[in-house]
């Protein structure tokens, strides 16, 4: 645009974000009703929040409650907004920022398909054993492994499988829970 056509102002303030982002794991207790996932995901996209991982499943069948574990990357100010905006949704019971509230456990499950023969096959099995990955399917030329652990462990196992004939991976996303006797 020609310099003389540059606007001297704007109807809105165009300021850059200066805060550093952090990675937090949130646990969200919700009514298991139709559309609840769309409400949560829609809130994230509408307000421009980033989701790294999202896991949802019914956890208390008789109370029709589901638990959503969501990993977000945001500035501290936006993290507070994400929590309060989620709590504003009518079917949301509770939101806990596990990262902010103390010690917690994170686990992820992955199914990993590896194809190969000969020496590769033996090496694949040795590594799978070291990572305590279970063989859940096997053919003469392939394995499907089930591996559970922290996301970093799953990442390393997948990285090791890559040169050994990795075909495809499926991951559940993160499930997280606070340590100690207290419930949510």
């Amino acid at each position, binding site marked *: 645009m020609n310099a*003389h*056509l540059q*606007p*001297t*102002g*704007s*109807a*809105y*303030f*165009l*300021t850059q974000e200066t805060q550093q982002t952090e990675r937090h794991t949130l646990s969200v207790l*919700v*009514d298991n009703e*139709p*559309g609840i996932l*769309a*409400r949560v995901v*829609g*809130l994230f996209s*509408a307000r421009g929040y980033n989701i790294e991982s999202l896991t949802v499943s019914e956890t208390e069948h008789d109370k029709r409650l589901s638990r959503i574990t969501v990993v977000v990357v945001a500035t501290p*100010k936006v993290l*507070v*907004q994400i929590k*309060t*905006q989620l*709590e*504003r*949704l*009518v*079917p*949301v*019971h509770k939101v806990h920022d596990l990262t902010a509230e103390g010690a917690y456990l994170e686990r992820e499950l992955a199914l990993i398909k590896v194809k190969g023969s000969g020496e590769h096959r033996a090496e694949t099995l040795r590594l799978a054993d070291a990572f305590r990955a279970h063989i859940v399917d096997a053919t003469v030329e392939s394995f499907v492994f089930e591996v559970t652990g922290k996301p970093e462990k799953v990442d390393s196992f997948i990285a090791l499988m890559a040169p050994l004939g990795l075909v495809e991976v499926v991951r559940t996303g993160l499930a997280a829970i606070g340590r100690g006797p207290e419930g949510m």
Partner: protein
Amino acid sequence: MAEKMTGAEMVIQALTDQGVEHIFGYPGGAALPIYDAMFQQDFVKHILVRHEQGATHMAEGYARSTGKPGVVLVTSGPGATNAVTGLTDALMDSIPLVCITAQVPTTLIGTDGFQECDTVGITRSCTKHNYLVKNVADLPRVLHEAFHIATTGRPGPVVIDIPKDVQFAVGDYYKPETETLRHQSYRPKMDGDLAAIEAAVDLMLKAERPIFYTGGGVINAGPEASENLRELAELTGFPVTSTLMGLGAYPASEPQWMGMLGMHGTYEANMAMHDCDVMINIGARFDDRITGRIDAFSPNSRKIHVDIDPSSINKIIRVDVPIVGDCNRVLEEMIRIWRSRTNQPRTEAIAPWWKQIEKWRAVGSLNFKNSDTIIKPQWAIQRLYEATKAQSKDVYITTEVGQHQMWAAQHFHFDKPNHWMTSGGLGTMGYGLPAAVGVQVAHPDALVIDIAGEASVQMTMQELSTAVQYRLPIKVFILNNERMGMVRQWQDLLHGSRYAHSYSESLPDFVKLAEAYGAKGIKCDTPADLDAAIAEMIDYDGPVLFDVLVEKDENCLPMIPSGKPHNEIILPDTADIGDIIDEKGRALV
């Protein structure tokens, strides 16, 4: 207890049990069973609109002027999509609406049926909550829950989407019971934290340059909240300013009133916000039209923020004392605690502050150069205000969006809450005319005036037909400058006066248009005739379109340009700046 009836009958029965006397709607194929049930009773009165957007704005005007929820009934597909603007408007301005949308039968959902749309999907992000009722057994609970959610906490719009087969299905209807309404996860916090309120009062007791910054939350908290705000202002002696949405909560006739703040607020209100040492925000949300540049917003103040919505706290501005709760209850507590600490206003301690405010006030930031050959829009509003003051009737004002809206906020003065209806958050052109219809339905004997612009009013002009049909004597006061004035002003100030598409060509003859609708048309283009023409408008017993031809290129001032702090406000060239603004500030004038 339970009574057998069809889903459609449940809708009407629930409206009756909720005390809903008026609904705004438009029929269509999927909504016919509900319309049939409505035909067979006469408690719930239906106002037939001309476009569903009109229905939603009417319901907003109705709700805002009564404190009761506004109710809308529309059909599936286009009926629902046309309602989206009004729903979004109600969400942004926290207006309680219940919008019932009909849906194609459950068996057709997802098949791209005739007049099918994903109503709950589309309205999810523009409602406080929404429901698709697939089973008639859920309908009574959902209907009552919708009213509960729309009207409590931070109010907002709720959509209930009811497929046609559910309207025909027979089930058990239950009356609303408070027991069953105890929602499992929805529990708005009403009472503010006592320790926080005490900390707030302690700050206020030490303040030397305090200011009350109040918003629409005070109006939403009911008339008692406005009463309590007045009492607290009197007890403390602090100055009061308000957002666009909060006008009327504190009387404009009080000496402690400083006028509206924000982008087009008064010089004194904005300067006081910038220089204060304690800011008491009651029911406002630090909107970007209020704060100006965030990092220069009121840099030296301790901030107290009362809001019923926890997500409003620290969203834009970091505050020192957050209080989550209903404005009325928090104000009551503040008054009680203030009284327990002292029985004196802080008159002496804040006398220098008032002296400073008086200096700012003397600038006369709302002044304008009047003319005796052409009608100035500000003057037209002043004359309208003077004429309505003499009325014995209650006067309600609605507006469209743009320059005329800001001039109305600046030059029309409100002493009571719920008498000012405007689209603040969403800024919806076309809001005012239908909103006026809704207000007039709720207050048949009142004088209801839509202060409009010629561009905005054409967006929902067809609702004049609704006003004529129901003999609703609304007055549409059009400040006609043949421009989209606010757009033109921004282009003037920020885009080198390149007026891209901001003028109105081929304008209708509003007098003939009014007559074509069966209303009265009046036109005025000379200052000398204005008072008589306003009197003619007010005295006419029926809807009026009043076309006031005003100065075409007037800018709305004062104005805080975007990206600037409050103390860099642009003043009109009639302002008596004296030695108050330094050289830098003067350059901006």
